[in-house]
């Protein structure tokens, strides 16, 4: 049954990758990266059990903690970007 979940997660990963490649907006790409990050954390925890070495859950924990930073960095990037372009050109 671990295999069933792993395959579902892997297929979802490829769907997310398709979304990231298709775009069309930058936000779709960020959404895809964020989805992919969550799926990676899940996949790593499932595979750790599949291997029978649950001490490797640290990796999934690292992703659960850190995946968030990328999205926040993007949010800040977009905020700075819009601020700067409004400041320069007037209006968005």
């Amino acid at each position, binding site marked *: 049954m671990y295999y069933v979940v792993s395959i579902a997660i*892997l297929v979802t990963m490829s769907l997310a990758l398709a979304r990231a*490649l298709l775009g069309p907006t930058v936000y779709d790409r960020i959404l895809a990266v964020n989805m992919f990050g969550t799926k990676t954390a899940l996949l790593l925890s499932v595979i750790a059990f599949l291997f029978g070495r649950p001490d490797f859950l*640290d990796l999934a924990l690292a992703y659960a903690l*850190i995946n968030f*930073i990328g999205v926040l*960095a*993007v949010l*800040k990037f977009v905020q700075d970007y819009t601020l700067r372009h409004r400041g320069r050109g007037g209006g968005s």
Partner: protein
Amino acid sequence: MITLFGVFVSTLLVITAIGMVRSQNLFGAVMLTGLFSLQMAVIFFILDAADVALTEAAVGAGVATVLLLSALALTSDEEARRRRRRWVAMTVVSATTLMVIYATFDQPRLGDPEAPVHQHVAPWYLAETPRLIDVPNVVTAVLASFRGYDTLGELFVIFTAGIGVMFILADGREKGRLSLLPSPDAQGLRHHLVPRVVGRLLVPFIVLFGLYVQFHADFGPGGGFQAGALISAGMILYALLEGESAALRAVSFQALAGMIAGGAFLFVAVGVAGMMLGGHFLDYSVLSSDPVVGQHLGIFLVELGVGITVTGVLLTIFHALSARVQRS
């Protein structure tokens, strides 16, 4: 079955890489870089390299995206359109790909226990680690003790890169001191209440997890490199949320410079201490009356030095780039 998973993810990896190169929008390419790193981590994990996967996770998911985005904010996020096709490059690359693939037919297949790599040195490391060093994680033992010279060299590469970024991005106009300081009105994401509350909750856990990875390196995947990347990711999260000046109030530039130099110094000092006590450079057995205890002490101190320097360098690079973003 697991092998098939690996095949599937590596196919995704190739698609992602081609997407990265083809994408006209650099922002999209950076997002795909994030995906690429996640897939690499999964493949590393499937191929039994837990330590490497943890490093890729710590570096790729947190730090790399943030640094690339800062660089994009300073330059431009669109690649200029080229009409001319690069046929020469395409031909050379395709021909070389075919040649490399042809060469792989002589390679031992994946996981072959008879492959030449597994015949020399590695079996000795695996067999002798319990007796000489007595830590379960052979990767840590090899990294810090058996191949300490390598690690020292790598640490100095990182050290040099940190110093280099400092000098390249420091503003020469203000005399006498490197002015990498951000403008004091940098707000970060203070107006966004929800991410701010959740993020502030996460920061201590990330740093705590980094410390766990640092000090648990003997028993599980971990070590100075991973811990340094994790802790700096935590501090970068704080800087994103509260503004860079708040982060610099917590850990100042002077402290970061001290960390960069101090960690490298600690590593060398442990090596020299070994020489003083009558052993070779980076020979930890002489650090204590019991050689195994000496090895434990040496590995602990060396990993600590690595962690301190990596944290200092990554944070310095982040602050140097983001101070530029605010000034522009």
